[in-house]
């Protein structure tokens, strides 16, 4: 049995638009349909909630500072190239 067969077609249809829902890219009818589905289908609700958290965690990934020796090498490399022009 493939994973697909554990799902109803409607669950899969809904699953495919969760990201667009989270990104505010669905029209009102589609939005209502998704909301209704996750209220009534507990598996899909769990899936939707974890997807939402995944998106949030990705967006909270901190930026690191480039090491000073790298940036000073970069700056002098660029300066050299520009001076040669």
């Amino acid at each position, binding site marked *: 049995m493939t*994973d697909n067969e554990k799902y109803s077609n409607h669950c*899969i249809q809904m699953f*495919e638009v969760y990201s667009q829902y989270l990104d505010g890219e669905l029209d009102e009818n589609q939005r209502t349909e998704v909301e209704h589905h996750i209220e009534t289908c*507990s598996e899909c609700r769990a*899936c939707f909630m*974890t997807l939402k958290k995944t998106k949030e965690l*990705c967006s909270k990934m901190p930026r690191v500072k480039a090491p000073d020796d790298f*940036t000073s090498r970069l700056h002098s490399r660029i300066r050299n190239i520009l001076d040669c022009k």
Partner: protein
Amino acid sequence: MENQQKKPIIKDEDSDLILEIKNGRTDLYETLLSKYETRIYNFGLRMCKDVSDAEDLVQETFINIFRYLKDFRMESKFKNWAYKIAASVCMKIKKRNNVTETELSLDDILPADREKEVSSKIPSWVNQPAEALMNKEMYLEIKREIDNLPPSYRIILVLRDMEDFSTREVSEILDLSESNVKVRLHRARSFVREGLKRYFND
């Protein structure tokens, strides 16, 4: 072409600086470099598994930015143009490393543990604030999941969810249709979601 419509110039936070550089103030390159080096460095770290590849990406990107700035017609935001260059450098590095591109199918991303008792409960990590969950270990876990994505999916997740570009902007940066961006983004997020579920043991 004579009668080709010229697109309007886009005014953004960098336009004045770019115009001055184009008009000969080459000393201002340094300002532009300092403004974007951290962003592009982090884009490199997110796209490359290897730090030295990330450093190559940053260097190549800025060399190309300064090489082609005179041809930049300011018809898009500078930032978007810069990322377009960074994305093409990324492709070059991918080729150099012989990375093979694969597709994520629906079967790869649908939850494997569909049995009710396993997956119908909302796992507890979902209710914790992202700030509380984000620590060194979480950072490395997400980084590992992202590294495991096929590159053409990884770049879309990185640009959309980490570098804050809109669907439309990503489609312009990567020359893809918006619907393609949406499908790939959803598959990429779902792939990472599966990894996080395993990590939290839910």
